[in-house]
């Protein structure tokens, strides 16, 4: 953009020049307007942090750190958030385990396998997936998917009960169609578009000459991918997975409908659970006093988690993009 700055006649170097005149008022006004709109982003982010933590302060003062991170959830007195944090973590991890291989496969399919002519309709399909509203996934999840999964879950659960590792994760008595796992599946569907499109952008930056070099050495396509594309895009791929994780953690409505709404910490993935955003969505309407402050505080926790993950992810993506541009 440096050329633009140089070519800008509105800021002449020596204003004593006879041809120089004051910069017109409208021009300066426009510059200020643009600056103000840019700064609005920073203002909003700061305001979010300040206003929500202000509303949540009574939760932290009455419960204390040990109360906030306890597992007891008996509103309106005992307001521990740990089971919700656990649920958010578990559902997000399930979502990543399902979505990352699929997204990566699709990104590779689009960039390295199919011709451009075929790639376009595939991209349209991914865009369609991204535009289906969260609440519609939730509606479908609870009324169609969950009843169907219930049967599968119960047969799996009765099959694996007693087997060491499988029983630990997929066994248990309290099997339900609305569960951690169902929430994870819905989340996986919802984060696939963003992880796919970001990975695709990263993978597309692999220099053609490196790829051709690998082919010239007699590699198969898969060997070229593991030898050239993946090492080149590692950093960016980590970043796009992290961004997917951020999305999964903050997703509210679909999860609120299919997670089963039961604040429990259990290793059994087919049991109902709860997550930070979904408890806020379900309970905030009737809450007041410290209870409302607690829900507000969970929003603050969520904000902090997602901001940290997003800052790391964007940093990683940007650094790897800069490196591949410099190379």
């Amino acid at each position: 953009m440096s050329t633009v700055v140089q070519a800008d006649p509105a800021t002449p170097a020596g204003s004593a020049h006879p041809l120089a005149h004051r910069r017109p008022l409208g021009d300066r006004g426009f510059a200020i307007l643009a600056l103000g709109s840019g700064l609005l982003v920073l203002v909003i982010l700061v305001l979010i942090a300040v206003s929500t933590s202000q509303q949540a302060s009574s939760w932290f003062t009455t419960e204390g750190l040990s109360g906030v991170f306890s597992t007891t959830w008996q509103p309106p007195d005992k307001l521990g958030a740990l089971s919700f944090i656990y649920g958010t973590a578990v559902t997000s991890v399930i979502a990543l385990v399902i979505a990352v291989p699929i997204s990566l496969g699709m990104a590779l399919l689009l960039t390295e396998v199919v011709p451009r002519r075929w790639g376009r309709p595939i991209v349209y399909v991914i865009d369609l997936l991204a535009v289906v509203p969260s609440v519609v996934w939730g509606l479908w999840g609870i009324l169609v998917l969950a009843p169907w999964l219930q049967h599968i879950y119960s047969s799996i659960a009765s099959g694996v009960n007693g087997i060491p590792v499988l029983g630990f994760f997929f066994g248990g008595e309290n099997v339900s169609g609305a569960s951690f796992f169902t929430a994870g599946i819905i989340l996986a569907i919802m984060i696939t578009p963003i992880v796919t499109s970001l990975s695709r952008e990263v993978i597309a930056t692999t220099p053609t000459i490196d790829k051709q070099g690998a082919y010239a050495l007699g590699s198969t396509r898969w060997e070229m991918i593991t030898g050239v594309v993946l090492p080149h895009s590692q950093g960016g791929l980590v970043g796009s997975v992290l961004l997917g994780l951020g999305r999964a953690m903050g997703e509210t409505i679909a999860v609120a409908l299919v997670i089963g709404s039961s604040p429990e910490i259990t290793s059994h993935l087919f049991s109902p659970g709860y997550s930070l955003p979904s408890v806020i969505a379900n309970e905030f309407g009737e809450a007041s006093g410290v209870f409302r402050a607690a829900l507000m505080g969970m929003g603050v926790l969520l904000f902090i988690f997602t901001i940290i993950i997003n800052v790391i992810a964007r940093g990683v993506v940007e650094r790897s993009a800069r490196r591949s541009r410099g190379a």
Partner: protein
Amino acid sequence: MAVSADPQKVDLREPPSWRRTKNRIMTWLMVLAFVLVIIPLGLVIVTVVAKGASIISWQFLTSDIPVNIAPPGVGGMGPAIVGTIQITALATVMAVPLGVLGAIYINEYGGKGLLAQVVRFMADVMTGVPSIVMGLFIFSIYTLHFGFSGFGGALALGCLMLPVVIRSTEEMLKLVPDSLRQGSYALGATKARVTMTVVLPAAIGGIVSGALLAVARAAGETAPLLFTILTVTSVNKNPFSGPNTSLPSQIFSNASSSFVGAQARGWGAALTLIVIAFVLMVVARLVTARFARYSS
């Protein structure tokens, strides 16, 4: 060599080996990934159309929302459709001009400067703020003081749209060649004039299409509306005061109901919402195809 004597018989392909088999397996796994994505998308669209199409009629689109226990065929989603249009339109009117101006700041004024880079980075980060947090934010700074209204919901949706509009507009402004800017500076135009009459028109196709996609996403958001607009059962013509409702909010409350009628109306509302979102997306594609002068 014997080979050159009979070129027809030469088989230059490598004999089948584990390397080639592995390559083929991996290619099929990639295709499988695509199939695994199409299945839920197809299922959800087929289900929504199958369950929603039968209930949708002019009466469904215009009538007031009945009690949950009412059988399918009674009442409709009129207030929710009106609310969604009001709230999304208000959010668009606020977020799109500010977003475009923000992008103008980043690309035309800030350039490589530190502040512009920080704003750009933070806009990226802001796209990752969960929508429910935006709802809580607007609840604490607006709803607590001024009460529930469609405008509160529009503020929350606007906050979600703002960073998306900034980033998509900025990408479009980047594509406008510098020679256009330099040409108009050479004619003596001020920076504001160059931006408004040369740069923006050159990028307008991409900007509009990006904004439409942001609107399509925002129209389907539920979480930021839950505690800023509540729900109502009859049309609230005034988006600035009194509770309002929206299609996503109604789908959310009907999805957790066990009454057949409520669920049927939920599917009808879901179909209406999906149609609105898809239409916006298709229009965005058409705008890109028709008006985008520079593309990446």
